[in-house]
């Protein structure tokens, strides 16, 4: 085996893949959220639709979006390999376990939280991305230029209670997932020092809460506004 394959298929190497892809996805989450918050502007969706048009046609963004899908898959596949390995390491479970106070709930349930996020992603892509790419979006005209009216599609989707509930639940799961993942990624890279441990932990929790609330308020506000 080549040295790089040997490194990346070791248990530590696979964790590094989780951390690297995790960091990239964190950047994506920030960019995606700042774009989506434009949905809350009270302009009938003009700015959001123009933004969606830009994102759909900029070659740099298109390249990054391919990377983004690749990294999501890599994150998911690596986690499946690790989870299988981890459960195989303990074929006989404990009959009595009182380990709940020795670690956080999120840290023990990353796979479960990740699965909720993955199912959400499939629903989310089917709702919006698929329609945007392969049709099903009405057109709208601003200053004589035709744009896809993604805003209306979003507005209509978020009139359905079940979709709003799915989104809010998934964002809570994402918040919990990040509350451990953010800190854990730093440790996987070997970054652990009393000078900044507290800062990373605090930043991770603040970020998780901000992301969960930031995303979850979008469907809730749209549901009540229209």
């Amino acid at each position, binding site marked *: 085996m080549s040295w790089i394959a040997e490194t990346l298929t070791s248990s530590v190497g696979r964790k590094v893949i989780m951390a690297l892809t995790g960091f990239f996805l964190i950047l994506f989450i920030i960019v995606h959220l700042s774009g989506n918050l434009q949905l809350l502007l009270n302009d009938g969706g003009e700015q959001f639709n123009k933004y969606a048009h830009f994102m759909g046609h900029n070659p740099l963004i298109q390249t990054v979006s391919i990377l983004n899908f690749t990294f999501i898959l890599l994150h998911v596949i690596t986690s499946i390999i690790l989870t299988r390995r981890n459960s195989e390491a303990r074929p006989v479970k404990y009959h009595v376990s*009182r*380990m709940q106070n020795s670690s956080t709930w999120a840290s023990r349930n990353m796979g479960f939280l990740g699965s909720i996020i993955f199912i959400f992603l499939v629903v989310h892509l089917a709702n919006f991305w698929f329609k945007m790419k392969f049709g099903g979006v009405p057109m709208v005209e601003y200053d004589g230029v035709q744009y896809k009216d993604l805003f209306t599609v979003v507005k209509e989707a978020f009139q359905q209670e079940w979709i709003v509930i799915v989104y809010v639940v998934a964002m809570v799961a994402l918040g919990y997932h990040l509350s451990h993942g953010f800190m854990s990624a730093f440790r996987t890279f070997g970054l652990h020092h009393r000078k900044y441990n507290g800062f990373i932990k605090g930043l991770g929790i603040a970020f998780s809460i901000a992301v969960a609330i930031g995303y979850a308020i979008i469907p809730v506000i749209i549901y009540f506004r229209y």
Partner: protein
Amino acid sequence: MKLTLKIWRQKDANDKGRFVTYQVDDVSPDMSFLEMLDVLNESLIHKGEDPVAFDHDCREGICGMCSLFINGKPHGPEQTTTCQLHMRSFKDGDTIVIEPWRAKPFPVVKDLVVDRSAFDRIIQAGGYISVNTGSAQDANNIPIPKDKASEAFDAATCIGCGACVAACKNASAMLFVAAKVSHLALLPQGDPERAIRVSKMVAQMDAEGFGACTNTGACEAECPKGISVKNIARLNREFLRAKFIEEVDKPLEELAEGK
């Protein structure tokens, strides 16, 4: 004290195993947990029954031989070794559930005894320095800053009991391996073989079938010696350094053979 013990009994590695309930009376709160098991075993021997097999050696918390998952926690409710756990940590009338460490690389030998040779093989893979240490040198012959010496010593206090593996939801041996890697990497004697050591020890840890680290921190919380997870971060650092920066992360003879 009167206690009800639910103890895992398993004839050998191939037996399925089951819990057997025992009553013990006349337990003094000053007994250690192992002494309490000795009392049980004496009564079993008197009755002509097979005594419960459990690991123990020094009984003063320094050898790492005792184990036991007691009431859902490795080494029981206190952060110490089972031999240093005293019956005053329990109440009269308590039911105590006792299980062996559960991990695929730690197969059950009999009852509560597991085979921890996997740890020995990880040490054999690289947890040493390849020179004779000779007789003790003069102090300060090799200057080592106090903070480095303390860090190395803290890591070296790992007794290899396996509580970290038992505590980890993934049965990961990262804290153990991290302590051993850190202890030598921090000292000048261990420095020349840093890269080879961490590479080989991680490879052996994986080959033994331990799980991967999820950074839950349960190992640190349950370690009877309080080994810090910062050693795990150091292991990750050492591993990445060995793989991406060091010229040689394998012994020269293996490189020559193209392995």
